[in-house]
C-alpha cells in the first residue's frame, strides 16, 4: 500500500528523479524494516519490536540475562522470542479507508 500512496503524493523534488538518490531509495525499499513517509505507527513499532526480539536471540549474553530473569532455559527464551516475532504488537489495526 505504501508504494501506491507515494505515487499519488506530491511529486517529490523532480530533479532528484533521475539521480543516484532515487536509486538509493529503491535500494532501501528492498530491505525489510526500512520505512517511508506513509508508514503508520503500528508498522514502524512492529519493526522495532522484531528488531528487539532478533537482537535478543542474536546476542547470547542478552538471551541468558533474560533467561535468568525469567527463570527459563535459554533455549526456551529464544524460542519464545522467535515465536513472538509474528505480530509482536498484536493484529494490525483496521483500515480507515
Amino acid at each position: 500500500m505504501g508504494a501506491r500512496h507515494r505515487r499519488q503524493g506530491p511529486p517529490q523534488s523532480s530533479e532528484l528523479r533521475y539521480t543516484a538518490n532515487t536509486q538509493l531509495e529503491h535500494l532501501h525499499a528492498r530491505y525489510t524494516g526500512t520505512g517511508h513517509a506513509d508508514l503508520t505507527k503500528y508498522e514502524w513499532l512492529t519493526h522495532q519490536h522484531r528488531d528487539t526480539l532478533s537482537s535478543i536471540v542474536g546476542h547470547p549474553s542478552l538471551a541468558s540475562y533474560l533467561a535468568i530473569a525469567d527463570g527459563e532455559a535459554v533455549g526456551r527464551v529464544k524460542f519464545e522470542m522467535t515465536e513472538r516475532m509474528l505480530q509482536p504488537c498484536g493484529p494490525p489495526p483496521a483500515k480507515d479507508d
Partner: protein
Amino acid sequence: MSDTPRLVDSFTAPKEVLQEFEELAEEENVDPFAETASKRQIASRQSDYHNRRFNRQAHESDDAFKAAEEGKDVDGGYKDAMRIQLLEKEEQRVRRAIEEKEKQAREEGQAKMDLDKTPPRAEIQEAAKELAGTKRKRRWDVESEEKENKTETKGGEWSKEALEEAAPKKRRSRWDATPADVNVGETPKRSRWDQTPVAVPDAPMQPIIMNAPGFMHEDKHNRYLTDEELDAILPAAGYAIVTPPPGYAPLVRPPKFANPVTEVGGFQIQESSDAAAVAAAQGLAPELPTEIPGVGSLAFFKAEDAQYFAKILKEEDETELSVDEMKERKIMRLLLKIKNGTPPVRKTALRQITDKAREFGAGPLFDKILPLLMERTLEDQERHLLVKVIDRVLYKLDDLVRPYVHKILVVIEPLLIDEDYYARVEGREIISNLSKAAGLAHMISTMRPDIDHADEYVRNTTARAFSVVASALGIPSLLPFLKAVCRSKKSWQARHTGIRIVQQIAIMMGCAVLPHLRNLVDCIAHGLQDEQQKVRTMTALGLAALAEAAAPYGIESFDNVLKPLWVGIRLHRGKSLAAFLKAIGFILPLMDPEYVSYYIKEVTIILIREFQTSDEEMKKIVLKVVQQCAATEGVTPQYIKQDILPDFFKAFWVRRMALDRRNYRQVVETTVELAQKSGVAEIVGRIVNELKDEAEPYRKMVMETITKVVASLGASDIDERLEVRLVDGIIYAFQEQTTEDQVMLDGFGTVVNALGIRVKPYLTQIVSTILWRLNNKSAKVRQQAADLTTRLAVVIKQCGEDQLLSKLGLVLFEQLGEEYPDTLGSIIAAEGAIANVVGMTQMNPPVKDLLPRMTPILRNRHEKVQEATINLIGRIADRGAEFVPAREWMRICFELLDLLKAHKKGIRRAAVNSFGYIAKSLGPQDVLQVLLTNLRVQERQSRVCSTVAIAIVAETCGPFTCIPAILNEYRTAELNVRTGCLKALSFVFEYVGPQSAYYADSVVTMLEDALTDRDLVHRQTASTIVKHLALGVAGLGCEDSMLHLMNLVWPNCFETSPHVIGAVMEAVEAMRVTLGPGVLLSYVLQGLFHPARKVREVYWRIYNSLYLGAADALVPFYPDLGELSEGQNVFDRHPLQMFI
C-alpha cells in the same frame, strides 16, 4: 627501347592532381551520413543468408489446449502448418526444376551464338530476345508478357478462364499473407480482393503492388478496392459477384473509408491532413513530420514509418471510430512513441503498453509489432526497442500468446544468428519467455513443421530456437521429442535438424549438459552411420560440441561413439572426415591417460595423411586436433618427437602457411603446444634456421613461435650451439625486417631476457646494432631501436656491461632533439629505463645535465612524449633530486602545472606524484605556493589537479606544512580560490586519515564559515570535508567538535541539488560512524512523523540509511512508546523491562 625516356609532346596536370580536384568537387554535395545510415540498417549490413528471413511465412494456430478444453475443433493448427510446409517444399522443388531448365535453355542458345560463323538472321533475333529476357532476372513467378497480351485479346476480363490466368500465381512470402490463398488447386473460386486490376478504358491501368515488402492496407494507392468502389467501376449488367469460398477469411478486414469513392475519374479535393498522410506514405513529402497528433514530438521519423503509422498521422473524428479501431490507434501511438520517441516519452509509453497488454489483447498488439520488425530499413535501436516491447508484453499476456507463437518465432529466430552478441541474447531471452508462456507442448507443435523445412535457413534458426526452449524448460522435458526427431524415418532433414538441436544445446548450455550427457549422446549416436553424409557430418559436429561442453568430465558417456568415430575416420574423406576429426579432437582430452595413447596412435595415421591436404578447413581442423592430442596427458614426448614432429614440420613449416592469417595463428599455437611436450630445444632447433629465411612473413611466424615457446618454457634447455644459432638468427631477423612491428621487438626482448647472463658475449654486437639503427634515417627504425634498449637495459646491467649502458645513454641523450614524437617518446623511455637500472649517481649523462634537457620537452603536446618525460622526471625527483639545483626544480614545477590538465589519466597521476617528490626534496613551501596560485586559473581541470597535488604534498610532507597555508588562502575573496581550498582540504583529510585528529579543532572555524555560506558548492564541499574528517577521527575522541559540525551539516539535509544532497547524506552517514547511531536517531526522530510530507520523506531516507548501517545497534535507542498502546496493540517492549 624501353630504356630511352619517352618524349611527350603535350603536358597536362598529373593524373592524381586532377583526381583530387574531382574528388573535391564531389565532396561538396555529398551526404556524410549516407554511408553510416545504411550501415545502421540491419538488413543492408547483413549477408544474403541473414536476409533470407524476409522469405519466411508464418502461420497462425489456435490455442489447441484451450480449444480442447472448450471442446471445439481447431482450425489452422498443426495439420495446416504441416500442409503448408509440404506445399512449400514442393514449390521449391518446382522452382529449382524450372531454373534448371531455363539455365539449360540459355546455355544452349549461347552455345549457338558462340559459333564462329555469322549466324542466320533468325537466330540472332531469337538470341537477342533471349538475352533481353535474361537482362532482367527472370523469375518464374512473374507473369510473362505474352500471357498478359493473351488475356487482353480475350473477351471478358472476368471470364472464368481469365480469372484463372490473371490470378497471381505468386504465393506471398510475407508472414502476414493469408495462408488460404496458397492452395490454388483446392479453391478455384477466388474472391475478388486479390484480383489483378481491371483495365478501365478511360483510366490508365494501375498495378496493385500487393506483394511489395512495404505493402500496407492503409496506403490509398495500393489498398484493396472496396465493394462500393468496384460497383462504381464495373457495369451493373453482365457481372455476378462470386461468393468467397467457405472458410476464407481475409486476414485484415478491408478498412471502411469515411468518404468512399463515388465518382471515378472525377476530381476531388482531399482533406489537407489526409493528403499529407498519403504523400508521406509514398515518401513524397519532403519533410517528415516530427509532431504527430496525439503523440507529441518525436526524436525522428522515417519515410518508412509513414506506411505503418498512416492511420494516426492524419486527424480523425474519434467519435466515428469503433472500439476496436480506437484500440488499434492507441496501440499504434504507443508503438510510435516507443520506437521513435525520446527516452522519457518512450519510458512512459512502454509502461502503458505493458500495463494494458491484456486489455489490448495479443492479436491487435502483435499485428502491429511484428510487421515493424520485418521492415527492411529497421535499425538496431528500433529493433532493440521493439524486441523489448515484445518481451514485456509476453510477460503480461502469458498463455494468450499461443496463437501467435509461430509469428513471433519467425520474427525473433533471425536474432539468434545475428552477428551482434546483444541481439542474440535478446533473441534468446524472448524465446525462452515465449516457451515458458506457451508451454512445451505448444512450442513443439508449432515448431515441428519447420524442422524438415525445405529451406536450410529455416532449419538452422529453428534448431537454435529449440535449443533455447530446451534451456528454458529443461533438457529432460525435451529429450523424448529429440529422440524421436533424431530417429525420424521420414526425412533426413528432420534427423539433421534434430542433431543440430543437440549441438546447439551443448554450445549454449555449456557444462549444464553434464547431467544429461549420456542421453544426449545416445540420442544422436546412430547418426554417425546415417546414410546421408550431411547427417553424419552434423552428428560428428554435435559430438564435438557435447565433448567440448562437458570437458574435462563425461568420457563414459561417449563410450558408444568411440568405435564408430575411430572406424569412421578410415572410411570418410573430405568434409565428413574433418567433422569426425574435430569430434575426436574434443573427446581426446576427456580420456584417461592410460587409454588415450592408443586412440591417439590410431588417429595419428589419418592426421599425418591429412597433413598433405589442400583444403583450408581441413588444415585448420588437423592442426587443432594435433594441438589437442599434444595437450593430453597420455601422449609421451618420445611419441611426439618421433611420430608427429617430422611430418608436422615438413607439412606446416613452409612459407605458404605464413601468408594466411588464420593458418599462421593456428600453426603457431599448435607448435607452441607441441613444444610444451617435446621441449624448447627440439622445437627451436628445428625452426631456428628459418629465422634467416628470405620471406619476411615466414620469419615473423618463426619469431613469434620462438617468442611464445621461450616465454613459457624458458631458455635453460637451449645448449651452446643452439644459443649461437638462435642469437645470430634473431639479430639477423631483427635487422632485416622491413615492416617494423611488435613481433620482432617482442621476440628479441623475450629471448634475450630469457637467456639472461648467457647473452653477454653477444652484447657488443647487439648494442652496436642498436647504435647503428639509432642513427637510421627512418624514424620507425630509430624508434624500434630505442624500444629495444628499453627491453634490454636490465639484461645489460645483469651482464655487468655498464660501459655499454653509459654509451647507449649518451647516444640517446644526443638524440633528444628527435622530431618525430613517437620516436622521441621511445628514446626518452629508453633513457628512463637506463637511469632506472644504473641509478642516479652512476647515470651517464649525469642527472644534472639530463634534467634541464627534459624541461623544454615537457612542453611537447604528444601524449607518449609527455608520459615518458614525466615518468623520467618523477624518477629523478624521487631518487636523485639533490643533483639538480632548486631553481631547475621550480622551473619544472611550473611546466608540470600544464600537465595537470592532460587528457590521459596516467599523465595527470604521474604529474601529481611528481609534485609530491619535488616538494619532498625542496621543502613544501615553494611548491605549495605555486599550487595555491594555480587555484586562480580558469580551467577547472587544472584547479582540480592542483588541489589533488596540494593534498599529495600534504601527505608526503605532513599536514602541518599545508593546512595553515590552505586556511590562509581560504581568506581570499575569490570564490574559485575558496572552493579550491576546500577541495584541497577535503583531499588532505581523505589521504591523511587518522592523522586528521590533530587538525580537527583547527579547521572547525573555517568549516563553520563554509557550512553557513550562501553558496551551494561551498556547503557541498564542506560536507565532503566533514565526511572525510569524521571518518578519519572515528574513535579518536573528537566527538565534541564533530557534534558541532553535525549541527551545522544537519540543516542542509533539505537541499535538493543532487550533488549537494549526496554530499550531505554521506557526511551524515560518516557522523553515524563517529558519533554512534543513538545520537543520529535522536536527530531523526524529530521529523519521522512530521506533518509535512517533504520533511518526512527526507527524514525517512536518513532513517533508512541509518537503519541499514546499524539496525542492531539502534535497538537500545528506540524510544519507549508503551503509552501509545491502544486496544489489542501493545507497544511496550517487555523483554527490555526485565531486570535481575
